[in-house]
């Protein structure tokens, strides 16, 4: 029963030591998430080593804090600075910054923080309710079905993330290749190890994730370093009024309703639901004249959607062992690091651990609500770290994390090589997430495929034997062909990226008028 399991999880999570780890995770996650240029995926990848030395329960509890803290930190930055660091924060920044300019920055921060809490709590509750049901389904999932799920995740991630499906596929191929390097689990044969003994264990997922996200980003930023600073909005003054609250609570709930399902979907992400939430609030509001000039609904809805989708991502991860975002892939790597094999049986075999994780998501969420608003001043101070020190520091922690895995300098050379790959991918507009997901999910897909075919004696029809796999493979086909067909049939609707571009153009105009956001030289 879910409730008693969840209560058991709380019992594990609410020990003084574990609460301390949750607090530590929340603070670390927010602090790193606030820093410019560091998204949730990089936050989680960089802080992964910090959890290595702990026993699995404490480590995962700390990880839950880091995960939600990283999300919070990102949106705090985007409201404070009007620089949407991640695509999911674009919508929040849109109205949030206008509110700030109208002197209501504190209210924008407050509605975002409380909305995140509300959405995070409801979505985590949904996760707790949905998970056991899904697990009952997942128990009957065959190896062929599981292979189909992996294919769906591949296709969805490759075609949805990134500028074009082909570039997503290219990134996926790189990830799949990296996943092949090492010793084949089923036959014990070495593959593509180039005769280097250290490679026979495969390339460590942590090294790849840190390389692609942290080192690649540092190199890319170094190659095109921005000069100048942005204005911090005034976050003093009154928090929410009763009127603000009255206007916010419905958008919070609606945003949650958009965000959670998209988070559950493979590659659903947070970008589309935040966009949908914004559009809905704009349509439903009683104050349409305020949209574009700082409508509180336009902050409350998207921010709730953003956080709800973050919880939704955990559903396929914890029930099926399928990561649907880069951050989820790194969390999966963390599970593997503790010797926990992810898969449909995760909740059954590691039940108490998973429930402790879910319970600490609740706890972390509550901690964030209490801590975040009073600490805004502190987070702003972090933004004053000069970029040279920031990126040198990122490389320092990348070195720490990768070296700590095996204490082998060769790992650091591989880290740099893959970092250069990440650098190139960023230049070409190849998305990084499919590579990480390919690396993690590739071996899982292969193992399941071969087990399925071994059972059927090589008969390929086993792959479409069950209804489940037929539906899933059908969806995968749809995800691959769908976007192409849709584009051909009915043209395009504006994407969040375009809305952001309009905003950029706004900024261009401002810059031309001499009131630029980046403080261009006179």
């Amino acid at each position, binding site marked *: 029963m879910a409730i008693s399991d969840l209560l058991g999880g709380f019992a594990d999570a609410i020990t003084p030591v574990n609460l301390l780890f949750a607090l530590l995770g929340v603070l670390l996650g927010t602090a790193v998430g606030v820093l410019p240029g560091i998204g949730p995926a990089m936050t989680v990848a960089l802080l992964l080593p910090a959890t290595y030395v702990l026993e699995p329960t404490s480590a995962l509890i700390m990880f839950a804090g880091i995960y939600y803290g990283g999300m919070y930190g990102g949106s705090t930055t985007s409201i404070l600075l009007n620089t949407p660091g991640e695509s999911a924060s674009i919508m929040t920044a849109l109205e949030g910054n206008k509110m700030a300019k109208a002197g209501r920055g504190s209210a924008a921060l407050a509605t975002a923080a409380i909305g995140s809490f509300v959405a995070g709590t409801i979505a985590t509750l949904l996760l707790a309710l949905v998970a056991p049901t899904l697990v009952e389904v997942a128990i009957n999932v065959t190896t062929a079905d599981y292979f189909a799920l992996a294919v769906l995740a591949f296709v969805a991630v490759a075609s949805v993330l990134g500028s074009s499906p082909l570039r997503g596929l290219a990134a996926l191929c790189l990830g799949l290749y990296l996943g092949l390097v090492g010793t084949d689990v089923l036959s014990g044969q070495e593959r593509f190890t180039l005769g280097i003994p250290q490679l026979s264990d495969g390339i460590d997922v942590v090294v790849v994730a840190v390389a692609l996200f942290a080192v690649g980003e540092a190199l890319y930023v170094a190659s095109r370093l921005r*000069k100048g*600073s942005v204005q*911090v909005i005034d976050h003093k003054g009154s928090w929410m009024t009763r009127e603000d609250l009255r206007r916010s609570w419905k958008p919070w709930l609606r945003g949650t309703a958009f965000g959670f399902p998209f988070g559950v979907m493979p590659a659903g992400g947070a970008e589309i639901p935040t966009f949908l939430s914004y559009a809905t609030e704009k349509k439903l509001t009683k104050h349409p004249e305020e949209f574009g000039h700082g409508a509180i609904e336009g902050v409350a809805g998207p921010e709730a959607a953003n956080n709800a989708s973050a919880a939704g991502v955990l559903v396929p991860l914890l029930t099926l062992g399928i990561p649907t975002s880069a951050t989820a892939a790194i969390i999966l790597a963390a599970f593997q690091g503790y010797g926990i094999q992810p898969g449909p049986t995760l909740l059954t075999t590691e039940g108490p651990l998973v429930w402790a994780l879910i319970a600490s998501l609740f706890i972390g969420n509550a901690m964030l609500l209490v801590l975040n608003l009073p600490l805004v001043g502190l987070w*702003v101070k972090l933004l*004053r*770290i000069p970029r040279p020190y920031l990126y040198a520091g990122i490389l320092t922690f990348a070195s720490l994390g990768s070296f700590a895995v095996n204490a082998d300098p060769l790992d650091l050379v591989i880290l740099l090589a893959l970092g250069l790959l990440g650098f190139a991918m960023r230049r070409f507009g190849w998305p990084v997430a499919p590579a990480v997901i390919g690396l993690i999910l590739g071996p899982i897909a292969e193992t399941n495929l071969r087990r399925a075919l071994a059972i059927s004696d090589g008969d390929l029809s086993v792959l479409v034997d069950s209804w489940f796999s037929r539906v899933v493979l059908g969806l995968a086909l749809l995800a691959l062909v769908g976007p192409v067909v849709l584009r051909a049939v009915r043209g395009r609707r504006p994407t969040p990226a375009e809305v952001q571009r309009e905003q950029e153009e706004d900024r261009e105009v401002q810059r031309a008028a001499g009131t630029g956001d980046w403080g261009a030289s006179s």
Partner: protein
Amino acid sequence: MSVVVVGYVPNPRGRAALEHAVLEAHRRDALLVVVNSSRGDALVDEEFLRGDQLRALHDELSASGLRTEVRQPVRGRDVAEELSAVCTETGAELLVIGLKKRSAVGKLLMGSAAQRILLDVDCPVLGVKSSPREA
């Protein structure tokens, strides 16, 4: 026409420097050049004026009745280099800077910007700690 240059930051010591500089510019009937520079190497620089703060500075300067000019260079150089560059360029006859009160440890840890300015700049430098009304 003679030129008075002042380094300005939005804090008490910057205000003190500005007030002294306005007095000096009146006394010398000089052009007042206000320099508010940023290294521009961090995402947030709260000492860099923009928006309302910048407008308030402009209002204040026009109210002083002086001929004034505000410069906000962002070129990755520190304040000492920027000020000395402006002084050289304008042939300034006086530079006004605000001084921070520093502890012994503070002096040990950080290279003093004021000291670098004194060594770099060719023109006379007026260092002030508080506003002329308090003096």
